[in-house]
């Protein structure tokens, strides 16, 4: 989905507001708002699950293995990983776009960050698999 024509720096992230009457929120901005809202919920659950469910929170290796033996927790943590990776890299993209690179460089930034995002999620899934299959 191509972003509509807008001044550099306003295409994404935190700079777009309704005061820019001539512009519309872009897909990047909306995605950032949606993933941001999801991160807010998931990071809260992540913190509660990690630090408050078990007394004193997760500590040693066995605590972590026991924690991830619950499928609900695996779903929560994987969802958090995906959403926070998305939000973080989209935010980094907004920061990088503030440098005012050429459109060609900008599309490369988007591509590299997308690959990085997929790699991070793959790493997280692999790690989850390693821990859940630990005996």
């Amino acid at each position: 989905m191509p972003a509509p024509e807008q001044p550099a720096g306003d295409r994404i992230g935190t700079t777009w507001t309704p005061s820019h009457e001539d512009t519309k929120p872009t897909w990047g901005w909306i995605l950032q708002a949606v993933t941001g809202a999801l991160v807010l919920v998931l990071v809260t659950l992540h913190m509660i699950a990690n630090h408050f469910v078990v007394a004193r929170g997760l500590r040693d290796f066995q605590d972590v293995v026991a924690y991830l033996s619950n499928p609900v927790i695996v779903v929560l943590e994987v969802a958090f990983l995906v959403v926070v990776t998305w939000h973080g890299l989209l935010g980094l993209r907004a920061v990088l776009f503030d440098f005012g690179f050429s459109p060609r460089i900008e599309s490369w930034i988007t591509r590299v960050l997308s690959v990085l995002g997929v790699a991070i999620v793959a790493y997280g899934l692999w790690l989850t698999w390693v821990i859940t299959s630990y005996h």
Partner: protein
Amino acid sequence: MSEQSVERTAVERGAEGASTRRRGVIGWVDPRGRRLGGWAFILNRLTGLGILLYLSFHLVVLSLLARGPSAWDGFVSVAMSPVFLFFDVVLIFGLLAHGLNGIRVTLVGFGLVVDRQKAMFAALMVLGAIALIIAAIRIFEVG
């Protein structure tokens, strides 16, 4: 121009601040003509980058789990040192500042509470400060 619309313009401009603001990354740290919205923008960017730095570290540290109990438990004992606990408090500061300000940015972006966003920002930051104090006490108490 009503007083409200003056305030609204100044806050909403956020990143741009005064019309003389330099665009791009240098513009972030240029304090001239910066209003509250501009400071909120810088706070959001810097805490966002700080959290990214933390998350990178977090992902690398978690790889110790793949190396088994002794590698992981060794790290946990280091993570309970006062220096690490202090950085935990810094992390909580970043998360609260970024998350709570993000609520304001999102609401305003969708055209909600635009006229009262200065008050909303202040209220959210007071809430964040209270939560930070409680978290800091808990972190150093429990270890």
